[in-house]
């Protein structure tokens, strides 16, 4: 498991009870020291305490950020170790890059590239978004919006089919 703050290996696992809420923390040695020095209950300086509180709230905001496509929060990824959908790599890019650097030592792909247009992935993301919008429009009976979205979906699908490679896949006979 990796540290939640800097993605070094976590060595300290803290379960914190605060205002009736249970929260699990996984920290590396450095961050744990820093965290514990702030969390000393003997601390009486009100100003520092509220500062720490604000910092933690900011951290929580980041952690609670949600992917609009699959609905996973970054916090959930942290505890599961699995992302929810390919689009998460875009939504959580800032958080994922240091993690990828830590795992692979690099953050730029230099290997195989699909023969199909690399843009088609982007088109797919747009399509996912539009389809889910379409569903909610229909559910909410906003049929004019739904019709408009359906047209954009068709347009994108056409673009996509034109972007397909012309060479047929190698198959027998």
């Amino acid at each position, binding site marked *: 498991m990796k540290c939640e703050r800097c993605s070094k290996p976590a060595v300290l696992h803290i379960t914190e009870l605060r205002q009736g809420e249970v929260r699990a923390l996984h920290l590396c040695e450095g961050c744990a020291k820093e965290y514990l020095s702030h969390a000393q209950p003997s601390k009486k300086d009100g100003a520092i305490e509220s500062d720490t509180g604000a910092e933690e709230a900011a951290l929580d905001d980041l952690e609670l950020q949600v992917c609009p496509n699959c609905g996973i929060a970054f916090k959930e990824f942290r505890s599961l*170790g699995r992302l*929810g959908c390919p689009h998460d790599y*875009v939504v959580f890019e800032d958080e994922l890059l240091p993690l990828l650097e830590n795992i692979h030592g690099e953050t730029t792909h230099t290997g195989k590239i699909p023969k*199909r247009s690399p843009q088609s992935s982007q088109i797919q993301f747009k399509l996912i978004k539009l389809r889910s919008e379409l569903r909610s429009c229909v559910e909410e009976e906003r049929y004019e919006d739904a019709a408009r979205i359906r047209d954009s979906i068709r347009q994108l699908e056409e673009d996509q089919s034109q972007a397909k490679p012309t060479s047929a896949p190698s198959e027998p006979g």
Partner: protein
Amino acid sequence: MDLESLTRTSGEWLKATGPDSDIVMSSRIRLARNLAQFPFPSRADDNVRAEIEEVLRTQIEKNPAGRRLNYISVSSLEVIDRQMLVERQLISREHSETHGQRGVGVSDEENISVMINEEDHLRIQVLRSGFALDECWSEIDAIDDAIEAERTYAFSDKLGYLTACPTNCGTGIRVSVLMHLPALVHTKEIQKVFQALQKINLAVRGLYGEGSQAMGDFYQISNQVTLGKSEANLIRTIQDVVPNIVSYERRVRQALVSENRRGLHDQVSRAYGILKTARTISSEETMDLLSSVRLGINLGLIDDLEIPTINELFIHTQPAHLQKIRHEKLETVDRNVARADYIRQRLNERN
């Protein structure tokens, strides 16, 4: 594919036909791929999983790149059949144990397996006997191209193929070689090998991959990094290091023979003797003894037995295979008896 008949056959990769197959049992490459328009399997509900399976099964049934694949719906199999596929290395433990619609396409020779709805939508795997990574790559590359020509993979220019776990993104490739290293284990030289491999970022695992312990002196060596290096580069790293381990193991084997040929001959003969006569035997003991016998054959100390038979016994003496052979559910104690029976029969039928 008839699962019942599998207990009488074994995968092509166990036939010991490839280069250096006295030490390199098999070479394997797998690619992790995902369809751009769906959430990853762990985040997909049952309907979406079914949709993913449908889309990808169609691709498998088109025999990508001319490879004929038999489709097996893993989600509709009994536990014992799923376990048997795990033992044959055709699906992963995770794929066997997860829930929801999923399946696997398997070639007749069991050299190719394409899992649908494992950790990623698609896990393509190609296996070869011996040290043959180039062959694995050209085959898997062709299959990957054929599927990709019809389906849009999740791919980013910067991060490459996007996978459910960031540890696989980029190339999505795992290159691994399964090695039989009894002499290095016996002399504890294996520790040096581990340390050297760790320094160049290669992982060492047991026979059944992640989290499994080393059984029968088998070790799987594979890449850990998947992003920032090309497939060719990652394959070359393994190709460069394996010959060193092979010659190290061969050197230590020869040293063991010249130091104490009689002692070694005695040890492998006793192992062979126990396997031919035991009435009850655990899985661990079987693995240990088979490993000794395998070494004995390769050193010419046992001459009435073939390597493929021993390779096959490593797989066929595992719990699910034994129960399929016996057509009944067996608890550990009965399994140990069934295992001993099966081994006796297999080893004595040759004489």
